[in-house]
């Protein structure tokens, strides 16, 4: 019998039907844990594994679970983040499409561990087909008695509800997500209070990303040592890297954490298309500061990327070749943050708009030298000043392009045009 996947089944295999998932041993781990372990034991396993969140922030998962207060007999929630909207990222989609039952089993284990009464999965609205698959998986799990009334023991129900998003990146922010699940505009909340104290409908809630939760069955089944045997000391395990842009074989690659960008780009993704030279790489989704081509021997783990002034983020690698104008790349990204700002905080609402307008003028050949000083100032003003981290992300993104490829901005201003007219168009 083929083994249960760590995260995804082998290429070409789809475990989205309950019978196929169970034929691999699916749901045995959750059933055994509920029967034989105490909730606190499951939490301890996840904590000892060193699993870190896979949604972009990398917070230690087991530690987050311990923030929940003791149960009081009333509702307690998991909010599962399936809003996957960080540009360059398409890994959670693979789990939702090809292994949704592993997410359900992960939610069962997590729900048992933190005494949750329900999991609210929030899936981005544009993922219509993954939503239908996920809904069928949840319906089939209910029909098989795996979730629902009394599944964690006498009087301990566990429900799963799926809410569809509708196109707002800000709903991938944990408190924006909760606002949307409650039926409101997805405008983030101030923290404190943190979700564990007051989350969904002011009840204790733990928010985790799809890939994070999908790790739990493997960790509980195979154990801490097996998980820690791969990856790095500070960030053990595997992750689903995504790679896109000017590579021969774009796609997702489930690999031990710590593969180098060079290996990802040249060994797994087949190198640069059309025989061109590499120019720049964004290593972790558009919020990750860009890296020049000479940095690609860096390992794609959080600590190593921090040393080269970037972040692992969602492990979404975007590759740009020598034809790429970096001001146009910066513009494509700044346009995104401007569009996605929820508007609450003045620095974000005004700052994303202002920096986008300036970068647009520079790209069109209408920039002036003072623009760069203003942009530098905006990068500072956007960072660490707002209710949520969208402004920080916009700051890091723009700041990266300005720091690593400042000469291209200067050339646009001095030459009053784009010096790479053959480049992609935003």
């Amino acid at each position, binding site marked *: 019998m083929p083994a249960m996947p760590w995260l995804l089944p082998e290429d070409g295999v789809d475990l989205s039907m309950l019978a196929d998932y169970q034929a691999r041993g699916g749901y045995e781990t959750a059933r055994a844990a509920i029967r034989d372990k105490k909730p606190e034991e499951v939490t301890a396993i996840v904590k000892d594994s060193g699993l870190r969140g896979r949604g972009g922030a990398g917070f230690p998962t087991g530690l987050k679970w311990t923030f929940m207060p003791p149960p009081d007999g009333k509702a307690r929630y998991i909010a599962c983040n399936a809003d996957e909207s960080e*540009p*360059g990222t398409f890994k959670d989609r693979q789990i939702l499409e090809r292994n949704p039952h592993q997410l359900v089993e992960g939610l069962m284990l997590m729900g048992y561990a933190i005494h949750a009464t329900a999991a609210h999965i929030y899936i981005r609205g*544009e993922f219509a087909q993954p939503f239908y698959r996920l809904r069928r998986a949840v319906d089939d799990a209910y029909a098989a008695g795996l979730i629902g009334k009394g599944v964690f023991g006498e009087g301990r129900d566990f429900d799963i509800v799926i809410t569809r998003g509708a196109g707002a990146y800000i709903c991938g922010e944990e408190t924006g997500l909760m606002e949307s699940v409650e039926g*409101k505009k997805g405008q983030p909340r101030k923290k404190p209070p943190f979700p564990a104290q007051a989350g969904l*409908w002011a009840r204790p809630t733990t928010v985790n990303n799809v890939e994070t939760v999908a790790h739990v069955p493997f960790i509980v089944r195979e154990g801490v040592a097996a998980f820690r045997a791969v990856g790095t000391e500070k960030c053990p395990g595997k992750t689903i890297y995504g790679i896109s842009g000017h590579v021969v074989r774009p796609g997702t690659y489930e690999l031990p954490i710590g593969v180098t960008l060079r290996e990802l780009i040249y060994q797994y993704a087949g190198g640069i298309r059309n025989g061109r030279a590499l120019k720049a790489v964004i290593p972790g989704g558009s919020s990750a500061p860009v890296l020049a081509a000479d940095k690609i021997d860096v390992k794609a783990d959080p600590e190593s990327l921090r040393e080269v002034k970037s972040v692992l983020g969602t492990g979404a690698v975007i590759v740009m070749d020598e034809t790429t104008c970096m001001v146009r790349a910066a513009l494509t990204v700044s346009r995104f943050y401007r569009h996605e700002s929820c508007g609450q905080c003045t620095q974000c609402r005004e700052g994303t708009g202002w920096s986008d307008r300036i970068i647009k003028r520079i790209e069109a050949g209408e920039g002036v030298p003072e623009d760069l000083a203003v942009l530098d100032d905006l990068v500072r003003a956007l960072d660490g000043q707002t209710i949520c981290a969208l402004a920080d992300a916009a700051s890091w993104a723009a700041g990266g392009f300005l720091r690593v490829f400042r000469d291209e901005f200067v050339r646009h201003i001095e030459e009053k045009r784009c010096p790479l007219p053959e480049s*992609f*168009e935003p």
Partner: protein
Amino acid sequence: MSAASLPETAPILPAEVVAKIEAELPNYPVKKGAMMNSLHHVQQALGWIPREAMVEVAALLEVRPIEVLEVVTFYPMFRDKPVGRHHLEFCRNLSCALLGARQLVRHCETKLGIRSGETTPDGKFSIAEAECLGSCGSAPMLMLEDHFHENLTVEKLDLLLDSLD
């Protein structure tokens, strides 16, 4: 004008949509939680979300109509104006842009005779741009209602457009 002289208008939400919304309500401790799914049901049935529908949704969720309007106008996928029968949404974010998304949009604009953001006079097609749709490994692409059309080329786009009634 007295209430008695106002014409009676039929509800705008079809019975099946009302039933779908009512089926969502028990899943949430507060009915308002059904807002997002309910609006998807409405938009799937009507193609967009008219004001009258917002009022009816508000009644079902026991909220004020403004609470529905602010959600519809906040979320990019929810449409408060009609669009074409085939609403073509092209991803314009970085991975798709690097692989020629803008050229695809321009080709579509030329072929249909409209600009991005517009609807053809016969109401058949509309063109829109979306931010990252999570298909970066199969770029460039577009979303047409519930389906992604990925690894697009000009030829495949023409095939798709020609196949739609």
